[in-house]
């Protein structure tokens, strides 16, 4: 069993809706869908993001496309327009997700 970074097997994009950030997670190879489904859980993602996520994390899946959508609540308190963060829109946060580790 080897440990690798998520970015070695998947790609990702983030977007915002008010106080929420959503981050997709897309395996390059569909074979890795199951692996990600087992290990990259809502709890694991919430823990990885630490102080960045003040609310819950919800994971959705599109089985036909073998992709995931993580919705992170409370990443930009007061909404992106009033955010104090340099990355007000949280557009870099997909690259933070890809820093997670996964066992292959």
């Amino acid at each position: 069993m080897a440990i690798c970074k998520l970015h070695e097997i998947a790609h990702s994009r983030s977007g915002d809706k008010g106080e929420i950030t959503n981050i997709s997670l897309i395996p390059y190879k569909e074979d890795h869908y199951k692996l990600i489904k087992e290990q990259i859980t809502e709890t694991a993602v919430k823990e990885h993001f630490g102080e960045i996520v003040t609310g819950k994390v919800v994971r959705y899946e599109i089985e036909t496309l073998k992709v995931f959508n993580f919705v992170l609540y409370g990443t930009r308190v007061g909404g992106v327009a009033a955010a104090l963060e340099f990355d007000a829109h949280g557009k870099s946060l997909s690259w933070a997700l890809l820093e997670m580790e996964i066992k292959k």
Partner: protein
Amino acid sequence: MKSLRIGCGAGYGGDRVDPAIELAMHGNLDYLVLECLAERTIALAQITKKKNPNNGYGQLLEERMTALLPLCKEKKFAIVTNIGAANPLAALNKTAEIARKLGIGPLKIAALEGANVLDEIKSRNSKLWEIDAPVSEVHDRVISADAYLGVEEMLPALESGADVIITGRVADPSLFLAPMVHSFGWQLDDWVNLGKGTALAHLIECSAQVSGGYFADSYYKKINNFVDIGFPLVEVNEKGEGFVTKVNGTGGVVNSLTCKEQLLYEIGDPASYLTPDVTADFSKIIFKEIGRDKVEVTGARGKERPIEFKITVGVKDGYLGEAFVSYAGHHAVERAKMAQEILEKRYKKLNLTFKRVKYDMMGINALHGSIGEKEKIEPYEVLLRVAVKSENKEMATKAMQEVETLWLNGPGGVGGIRKNINPVLAVYSTTIPRSQVTPKVAFVEVK
């Protein structure tokens, strides 16, 4: 079978103009859509309109129309755009003026008004979701309230046969879906087709984001020719079947990876994507690469649309002061930390208090917080960022002035200081019954 080609010539207010020209020239389009409004844009445009009643529309209107009006006649496509922002009527008049100046005619221009519901939300005292309080709580600071209108409100303009249709706030996918509904005669409760059309619309509404922009990296996801990145188009038939593509020879790429990323962009539950037109369901979508830069989209569906209109409310929310101080060379990070400590103590000594304050070490933790700190790589150069939020402009100004004094009163080797203070415009949300909104369409015909 009847089919349509709809292109996206702008994915935000300041987007590039030349790819839209390329698309207009070589896209063989029926419609060119320019999506020009972010969440905050209308609130900002309202401020502009207050100062000048003939303004308050998208900033690049003149440049876009000057480039695209001649092509719309020559290549026989219609332009659909929300560039009207806070003032679709002024945008209509400006566009007519440009057409006359260029000698383009006959040209029929329509403007959809009625998205502004400021009076309605004030009198209803609607509850704002983000602050969990009614409008009365922030009454004197509210500057705009706009309903996300949809296909139904746009149809009269399309049915008029206008060459250019200008709107204010309309849900982004509706701008693309309206031409499909109009051309194919889909019913407004044909949820399946509206769902299919919305999936295609959502895929291209952010221009280059589906053709390699906001996607590429230098390693796993290389793309060719960023400089001439092509804007996307969809070809769709009356059954709602279609594909995403771009003009041959342009830069970038349209493949299943770019489509997967963009399909999930800014959505929550993929089975329930809400627009004024439909609750679109992307949970069974299938992408198939059917040619070079050509991805077929099938399997989208839809359910009944939301009962009410979503409203975006612009509210003045104090001031944001932001400053940057840089250090390089030996112990750069420690010197930046010294600078931070000095500021913290000075703010205390001078009794400067803020609603919120944030310190970042750019190069270490500004974007990803403690995730980045785990890497334990000491950068050669570092930028200390200080951001303060205050109701009080003077307080924010003094805080920024203190950063500037680090030139003479802080650690050695300071490599530049920048500071700025800007009013904050928060954007809140609520909903309103459809019956509270009165859309109307104005026309100008340029001979």
